[in-house]
């Protein structure tokens, strides 16, 4: 009987990619999805956490801002402090940024409309629990579906992000005006990651299954297959790819 890791999927009122994320996690044999409510204050027995996409609290006031103040977010903060993996997809990314667990913020798209389409993306930081299975610079295709996905951070933060290798992935053709084409970022330690594209929507199928490695990576990382060299040394510059 192989080990099975419990991946907590956080549901806020208005989350709508929860079932898709559940199915994506369940496709990987070593991972077992489990629901976590926005009201939960404990993540005991959970090995990794995913905040799926959607419109938590209707995106009212500002995307992610109400969810970022839910009881479960304190638990996620403590969970992340222990170095356990946390992934935010789309609205989940917005919530993690709003909660201060990831740098930067997500502003309305430069075109001011919702954008749903497939994008070419380069995976840059491959030493996170979610990208181990990629080689640095890997070109993949993932769909985006958001209205507020324009990554923004002050210039100092941006320099720091680049220097520390905290850019998870970049758009090849920037769809929304994100600074430095950034589609996803990580925490300095790399264990917290957030991205606007939806890996859970490309798990199987004739066209692409480019989302699958994100979840396979998590299983591998939880099993102990990881490179322990410091993140900042693992990646030098975006032009290497």
């Amino acid at each position, binding site marked *: 009987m192989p080990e099975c890791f419990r991946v907590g999927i956080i549901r806020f009122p208005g989350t709508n990619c929860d079932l898709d994320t559940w199915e994506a996690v369940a496709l990987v044999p070593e991972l077992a999805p489990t629901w976590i409510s926005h009201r939960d204050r404990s993540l005991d027995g959970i090995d990794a956490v995913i905040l799926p996409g959607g419109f938590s609290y209707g*995106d009212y006031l500002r995307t992610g801002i109400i969810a970022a103040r839910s009881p479960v977010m304190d638990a996620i903060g403590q969970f992340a402090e222990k170095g356990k993996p946390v992934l935010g997809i789309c609205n989940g990314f917005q919530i993690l940024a709003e909660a201060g667990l990831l740098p930067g913020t997500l502003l309305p798209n430069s*075109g001011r409309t*919702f*954008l*749903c*389409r497939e994008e070419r993306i380069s995976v840059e930081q491959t030493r996170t629990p979610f990208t181990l299975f990629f080689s640095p610079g890997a070109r993949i295709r993932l*769909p985006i579906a958001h*209205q507020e996905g324009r990554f923004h951070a002050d210039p100092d933060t941006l320099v720091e992000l680049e220097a520390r290798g905290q850019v998870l992935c970049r758009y090849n053709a920037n769809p929304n005006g994100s600074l430095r084409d950034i589609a996803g970022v990580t925490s300095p330690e790399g264990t917290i990651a957030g991205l606007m594209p939806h890996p859970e*929507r490309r798990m199987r199928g004739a066209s692409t299954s480019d989302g699958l490695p994100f979840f396979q990576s998590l299983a591998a990382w939880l099993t102990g297959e990881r490179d322990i060299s410091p993140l900042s040394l693992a990646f030098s510059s975006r032009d290497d790819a």
Partner: protein
Amino acid sequence: MTDTQKSRFRIPAQEMERILSLLGRHPNITEEAIFSALWSEHCSYKSSRIHLRRFSSKGPRVLMGPGENAGVVRVTSRLGIAFKMESHNHPSYIEPFQGAATGVGGILRDIFAMGACPIALTNSLVMGSLRQPRQMTLFRRVVAGIGAYGNAIGVPTVGGEIWFDERYAKNILVNAFALGLVPDDAIMSAIPPAKPLLAVYLGNKTGRDGVSGAAMASRSFSDKESDLRPQVQVADPFVGKKVMEATLTIIRRGLAGAIQDMGAAGLTSSSVEMADKAGMGIELDVEKVPLRDPTMEPWEILLSESQERMLLLVEEDKVPSILEIARESQVAAGVIGHIIPEPVFRVRKGETVYGEVPVSHLTREAPLYDRPQSPRTASFPQHPPHPSASGRHAIADIFLRLLDHPNGGSAEWIFRQFDYEVGTRTLLGPGHDVAIVDLRAEDRGVAIALAGSSHPVFRDPARGGALLVAKTVTDLAAVGAWPVGLTDCLNFGNPERPETMHDFVMAVSGIADAARRLDIPVVSGNVSFYNETDGVSIPPTPILATCGVLASPRNAPPGSLGEGGLRLVMAGSNADLSLGGSYLDWILPELEESPVPSVDWAGLVLLQPFLALLIEKGALRATRAIGRGGLLRTLLSMVAHSDETGLHLRLPLLDTPLGTFFSEAPGRIVLAFAPENGPVVADTAREFGVPLLDLGQTAPHRFSLTYRDRDGKEKALALPLSSLKKKYLSALSGPMETLP
């Protein structure tokens, strides 16, 4: 009270008299409000009902037909699909964002009221010309509104249609379609068992928004202008999602006896219609209705069209569980009344009775009109045929002309604003002319095809109506799906005009006869009359959605391709390539006077089994039914999204080059396949008796063709591929992105 005959709710004088004679007294304001809602065209279908009887809703797959919130058709041994299309035209013109958003919300409630979990949305939009800034704003806001609701509630918008036409400038059409999945043993009904049930209110609190949306309150009713509240409802997809989840939980746990959404005429129509179907009466206490504004009058509460509300009829012992589910979902709920044995609709506020009307007066005794009809006189002058119609440059010029209009371009600007993948069931999304959604059961999928092109119906209502049915069936056949059910939204002008009524009756008969001929049950539908402004009605515009089922949906060929060297063949009959009602006929009406093409019904039904077999054999790379603009535009739309793939066509002698290239006669599908599959395609076509016409091949960097004209003269035509693609991709997005 000198002028009691004149209605405070714009009920026509003769109908007021009918109310007086039915009641034997004057209605009070509450009762009059109730009559105004239920006798409105919107609720009573008083002008259309007798004609809608032409539709057949029977079929071995039909699990639920008209009379319910939505029709349900069996698609696997255990599952049904519930689907319906509805208009939200008038509100969308007044407030495009909220009007369109509430249109989506309303159709979704119809679906989950049946116990079906919504898995797909589509829409059909008709707007005025984008040359007007006002239309640009309307269009932009309608699209944003549709996206705002569907994206937030998490139901993918998998397809849609757009048509710009100046004749709709003051009456835009916003028709929304939704489809849901329901196990056959868990279908909910709007017909309650004849038991003493309680009426439970679930959802958003009731406010003054949308009061009298179905029958607008008269201005003379209030002295103060400032008291007039907007008649357009406000959407709240966040609450909508919670209401949807609570409703589906209640149904899954078997707690409800009957459910109806509070749509047009809100509380009044949902309560009266359900009581009527049970042959019972119902008593409501408006004091118990959760309100946003406690000063609301009983009639306002009854007519409010506040969104995200459901009415449930339940047994008393189930109430605590339902209230618990509502609490858990953070949705307002409460018992607001009960079913009574006397067949009356009684409205109380606490102990005071505000109105009491026999249910039958509101339903069966509602007016029913067989309105006069007379054919329209020909509205287009006769033009001599275009002088260069068969010349060498004409084909190219005409083709470019078709692309040089938002109607001729890709609709990507619209659908990229819709989340078409949430739920991860979408196998073919927007841009393929037919959408496919995975049922995730028995290796089957559902395909959805829309037909909202009104021009054939304008040219010839009966033939045009039939043509629309045939078009959807062709679209379905292109992915190997066989049709299982049809829903329609009949958008027309003022039914009191005999010409409009004639168009309506002809179109209905055309659609009904075609559906009957193809054994497609019409399981749900909606009529939108009075699309008229300043005495000018819109052209007749029925919009259809046909649902089909297909096996191994992951193998269905897409509508686009990106590789060179594939063979291109057209499958289907070329018997009648008339141009009447086509996009060409619309954009260049002076070109050629031509009838709407007749449909080769026998040939049409061969296409689905033929395509299904080829798909099963894995022989096809891409397919697309010949649609708007005809063959050339269809081919261009197949290659437009690839970087460099084009095509070279080598056609035989053509009797009617215009017809071959631009006719939209249904029953014709372009097949693209690898050359080694040529024999299997040819053999299978022979076996089924499907005619094939060799077109040519896909080829990099080209868009060229050769053919011989009637005199046997060799004709050649080559167009610059990249500029064609650019035209196609930017015909709509260009103006939307460059202008403010």
